[in-house]
């Protein structure tokens, strides 16, 4: 299904005022090659067949839509969890990694690079590279390497080389800079698997399409379980915004569905330690696209903060910036404390330990006013195994 032009991308790669491809000339041939080929490749029957097969047999899709009974009682609505945490490698990131590795193979690329924040995208990329026997280099901020140690080990075990990003805030933004520098220096044989709906066109659209399987399945599953065509609310957390875009995609043109995107407020949006881009950001250019980003008056990118490495990013995908500007989705924010409490609550009420990223979306439920008949789908984007240290430290288990 293609999106209407209200919310989809135009030929120049723009969503309203946002998007485009603000890249140095050194990256132009790579990005242009992708732009010219991505649609014909991903719409090709062989590609679709292999993609769907791997999602089914390797990732374990469809991921369940789980009616969360105790959550439903607590919040006075029908709450459904879209269980991306049950995917192979533990999050939604694998959907995009599978799509892009198949694309890279068809482009004849011999080497894969990726950036990672929490490590989920790095693990997903290392996994698909192992599956396909392709060399893999993952850039990761030094700070994130320290706070997401299990994922670093997983990537190494999968055969990837993990390269620390030591500049700036030494988190996701800096890992992305390093990956872009690598790509500039290796333009012919290397494909850059960007992990979110960010970067120069066609990445935001390509990643959104690979992740759209989330809402494609959820729509069908909801119909089977409730008889209703559409939910009343769809909710997800947003860093760059890939799980949210996947969760929103097939509902974007269904205007009755309320879309709620939850950003990381960190220690609070006014504390100077936050990653709530729509609250704190202004229009500008980051990592190849015109979007909303946190920056000083002088146009320097502000170093973000969130306890969740996956949301610790100063920008947001251009499609999200557009949905925000035209009020198609509501953007809210949740603090570190609220998220951690929600992670604990979900563990105790539903027996699911969520990633701290996901816990931001769950925490927003506390602030919502639902009708008893409302159907609410929330994306459980990842599992919390990687965050146990943080949970343990916070709660003192």
């Amino acid at each position: 299904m293609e999106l209407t032009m209200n919310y989809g991308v135009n030929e120049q790669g723009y969503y309203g005022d946002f998007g485009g491809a603000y890249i140095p000339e050194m990256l132009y041939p790579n990005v242009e090659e992708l732009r010219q080929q991505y649609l014909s490749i991903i719409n090709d029957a062989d590609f679709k067949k292999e993609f769907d097969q791997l999602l089914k047999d390797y990732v374990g899709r469809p991921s369940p839509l789980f009616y969360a009974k105790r959550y439903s009682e607590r919040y006075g609505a029908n709450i459904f969890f879209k269980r991306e945490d049950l995917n192979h490698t533990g999050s939604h990131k694998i959907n995009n990694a599978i799509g892009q590795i198949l694309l890279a193979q068809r482009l004849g690329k011999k080497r894969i690079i990726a950036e990672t924040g929490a490590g989920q995208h790095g693990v997903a990329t290392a996994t698909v590279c192992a599956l396909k026997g392709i060399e893999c280099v993952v850039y990761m901020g030094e700070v994130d390497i320290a706070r997401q140690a299990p994922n670093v080990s997983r990537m190494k075990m999968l055969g990837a080389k993990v390269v620390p990003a030591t500049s700036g805030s030494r988190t996701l933004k800096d890992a992305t800079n390093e990956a872009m520098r690598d790509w500039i220096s290796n333009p012919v044989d290397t494909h850059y698997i960007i992990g979110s709906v960010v970067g120069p066109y066609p990445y935001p659209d390509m990643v959104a399409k690979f992740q759209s399987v989330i809402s494609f399945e959820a729509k069908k599953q909801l119909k089977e379980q409730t008889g209703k065509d559409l939910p009343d609310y769809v909710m997800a957390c947003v860093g760059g915004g890939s799980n949210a875009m996947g969760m929103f995609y097939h509902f974007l043109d269904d205007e009755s569905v309320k879309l709620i995107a939850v950003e990381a407020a960190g220690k609070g949006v006014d504390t100077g330690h936050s990653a709530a881009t729509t609250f704190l950001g202004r229009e500008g250019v980051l990592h190849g696209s015109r979007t909303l980003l946190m920056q000083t008056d002088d146009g320097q990118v502000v170093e973000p903060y969130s306890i969740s490495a996956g949301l610790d990013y100063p920008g947001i995908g251009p499609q999200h910036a557009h949905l925000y500007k035209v009020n198609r989705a509501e953007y809210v924010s949740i603090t570190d404390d609220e998220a951690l409490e929600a992670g604990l609550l979900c563990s105790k009420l539903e027996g699911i330990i969520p990633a701290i990223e996901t816990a931001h979306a769950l925490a927003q439920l506390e602030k919502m006013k639902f009708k008893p008949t409302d159907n609410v789908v929330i994306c459980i984007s990842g599992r919390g195994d990687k965050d146990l240290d943080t949970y343990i430290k916070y709660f003192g288990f």
Partner: protein
Amino acid sequence: MNRLNNLFETKKNKLLSIYFTAGYPALNTTVEIAAALEKAGADFLEIGFPYSDPVADGPIIQNSSQRALENGMTLNQLFEELKELRSKVSIPVMLMGYVNPIVQYGVENFCKKATEVGVDGLIVPDLPIYEYEKLYAGIFKKYELSNIFMVTPQTSTERIRKIDELSNSFVYLLSSSTITGVNLKLSDAIEGYYQRIKDMNLKNPTIFGFGITNHSSFKKACEYANGAIVGTAFVKLLNEDNYLEKIPEFIKSIKTDSFK
């Protein structure tokens, strides 16, 4: 006709341009460094304004940008420093930096200020042709600022022609596809690219940049183009004590064979 066009009219080869980052190693050094470079024999200059996320730059220029920002360099500060540029420097000067600070400053405001202080051109590596033509070409033209585009070994012939068409001072040839500060390794492929560009007989002069660090790479670049730009090697010098006094020696070492 601006200073850049005048320069290319009068001097056709072995043009040497030097890049340095404004605000590094300290604030209020921009004009004295520029003046020293002119006196030492540089033909034109690129003054970088720092950005927090310079994806096309290697560690040396990244570090200079970060230090400049820590020193308090802003676009307002830069334009303040450049007010005395034209009383001390007569060679062409370009500003080089990433698009986001310009967008925040306001593209028109930025161009107006640049022209007022006597800047001749802009190099914005992450401003693509499509966006430049659609949004900004009119503003650049209004303020008579040249926009410099880059060409890499991977740039198609068709696109090089388009870039040549859009350019009105010179075309910036990247010596190889790389970030700044990587030493140029000459291979047959690169010499092939140099020759291919030369054979295209572009209407604009061509200047090589990235990887030009010493006399031998400068000389090689000048065999195929009208000149070359030295950046990282000079930024390294600015980290040394008494760097102003060392500038003549540095320029001489790039320009002449015999210098040891």
